[in-house]
């Protein structure tokens, strides 16, 4: 197929010129979630290793960035590094955290790892709430804005492009797109090459993989580390979008959300992770925005089914429905008029 089918992706450059801030922020959440979900999908979808600890690594990325880039104040510590360097350090830190877990990640298979990685969530929450001077404790900590090569990704400076004033979110949009694009390309490269085939074989036939000379434990540990670096990068973007990092957010529910994303989108594929992240992240936002127009959904705080609850029912049910009826996820949905018929091989 020609490269022309990738052209519609250029449309993603347009939103900052047309959409309001609400949608730009929602879009940035989607991008951050998509980066994290791509990482989790490499681990769970392609290698068959379940992880419930993904939100822990998101937290490491987010707080790593805040710590490295943040300034020293009365009750908070920070190194005050240049933000770009801080991003690299934060991702490396998340990778190191993943590597530190590798004695477990390499030896346990599948669901066993899933339960063991529950420990990361609870340990992580414990540490986040107790290391006050890094995380700011219960109330969290403000996130220093991104800055690269003298260009600040915040509301300062009068940047006007084609008559649109660019604030923090507009600028971050392009940064997010760039990061997501790079993350997706890298994951595609991993999946297409030898590592990807090794990972799939470990998932399907662990013994055969070992017999063929694939170092099973080492590969599992490496994929776990890679996926935690993806989570770290996603965490950084998440923190930049939120502009405040709160420990409570990185709990068990977030980890479950990421698992829901990759199942809904499609296990083991990059596009699946992106589709799932879009679905799970946008659904609550959509329901919140239009809650007064929807039946059965009441605005938050009025006692009825709140938009975020309604979203949970929907994507929880979507997970079950997709496992039952659409094993390839939403990605596996084919719209006949848009999809070319596959050449049948004789």
């Amino acid at each position, binding site marked *: 197929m020609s490269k022309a089918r990738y052209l519609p992706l250029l449309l993603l450059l347009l939103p900052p010129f047309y959409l309001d801030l609400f949608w730009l922020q929602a879009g940035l959440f989607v991008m951050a979630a998509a980066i994290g979900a791509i990482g989790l999908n490499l681990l769970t979808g392609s290698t068959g290793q379940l992880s419930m600890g993904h939100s822990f690594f998101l937290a490491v990325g987010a707080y790593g960035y805040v710590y490295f880039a943040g300034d020293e104040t009365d009750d908070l510590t920070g190194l005050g590094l240049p933000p770009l360097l801080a991003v690299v350090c934060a991702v490396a830190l998340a990778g190191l955290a993943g590597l530190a877990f590798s004695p477990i990640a390499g030896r346990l298979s599948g669901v*066993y790892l899933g339960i063991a990685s529950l*420990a990361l969530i609870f340990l992580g929450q*414990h540490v986040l709430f107790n290391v006050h001077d890094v995380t700011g404790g219960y109330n969290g900590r403000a996130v220093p804005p991104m800055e690269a090569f003298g260009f600040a990704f915040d509301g300062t400076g009068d940047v006007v492009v084609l008559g649109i004033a660019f604030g923090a979110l507009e600028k971050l949009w392009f940064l997010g797109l760039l990061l997501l694009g790079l993350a997706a390309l890298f994951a595609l490269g991993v999946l297409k090459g030898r590592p990807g085939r090794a990972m799939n074989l470990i998932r399907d036939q662990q013994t055969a993989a070992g017999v063929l000379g694939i170092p099973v434990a080492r590969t599992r540990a490496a994929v776990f580390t890679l996926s935690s670096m993806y989570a770290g990068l996603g965490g950084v973007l998440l923190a930049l979008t939120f502009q405040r990092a709160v420990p409570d957010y990185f709990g068990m529910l977030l980890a479950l959300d990421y698992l829901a994303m990759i*199942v809904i989108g499609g296990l083991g594929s990059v596009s699946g992770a992106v589709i799932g992240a879009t679905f799970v992240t946008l659904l609550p936002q959509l329901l919140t925005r239009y809650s007064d127009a929807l039946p059965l959904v009441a605005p938050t705080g009025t006692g009825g089914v709140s938009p975020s609850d309604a979203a949970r029912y929907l994507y929880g049910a979507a997970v*079950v429905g997709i496992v039952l009826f659409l094993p390839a996820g939403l990605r596996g949905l084919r719209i006949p008029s848009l999809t070319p018929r596959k050449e049948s091989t004789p």
Partner: protein
Amino acid sequence: MTRLIELLINGLSLGSVYALIALGFVVIFRATEVVNFAHASLLLLGGYVTAVLHDDLGFLGGLAVGVLAAAAAGALIELVLLRRAKARRDVVAIATIGIDIVLMAELSRRLGTSVMSLGDPWQDRVVVLGGVTIAQTRVAALVVAAVLIALFLLAFKYTPWGVSMRAVAEDSETSALMGIRLGRISMSAWAVAGALAAVAAVFITAFPTPGLDRTSSIAALKAFPAAILGGLDSVTGALVGGLLIGVTEALVGGYQNDLTFLGRGLGDVAPYVVMIVILLVRPSGLFGTREVSRV
């Protein structure tokens, strides 16, 4: 010294409750090879039904309906999800997370910020024995859990149901050929697990815990490390793991004032640390079958 004894007894009692939950978890895994991530929300469901009905039906009546509700929910999950899903078993495990998300969202919406009592007859009374003070609920938990576990083990060993359950765990294809109805076995496993979880809910939420609220499921989650450190496919493992986790939690929680350099709320984290340490030494748990592949 009395403090240590008190803590140990509390730990054993808590551990026996965890063992009860972990037992159900292991039974499901043995019968269907699926890890049930919705187990904590089954427990919350049983507890919630009991809490709502105990005013009208009395404690035992409410509990009976709660147990039935959790058992029915378990059986329903088996009927709707497990029986139809053709996906890999670990993907089905993720699907139970979907069920967990829905059940948990609904139950925590209904609970809101309220703390409900399950109306147990022991309330906050204590027993004093030779200077050692123990809450009656803790004694009751120990006794009830011991009786239920003993009953379960006997049934597992001697009844036709238990024998077929073990046969299915050993080799499901052969046992199907021998005339064992696989669907019935796995459905009953899910129902039994749900019922055990509902009973455990009473003791998870009873004194000294304030009652059933949306965080009760966090306590129930500690049965996961209990099950896996004993070995997911071992009934003995679930019992030992549960007791180990319970005693650890009680001891660390009791002495946390001497351990403040590690931060507050250490009792809730300690079970997971123990799990990690044990898994580092024995990746398939204390009593789990080691994965051996012959080529």
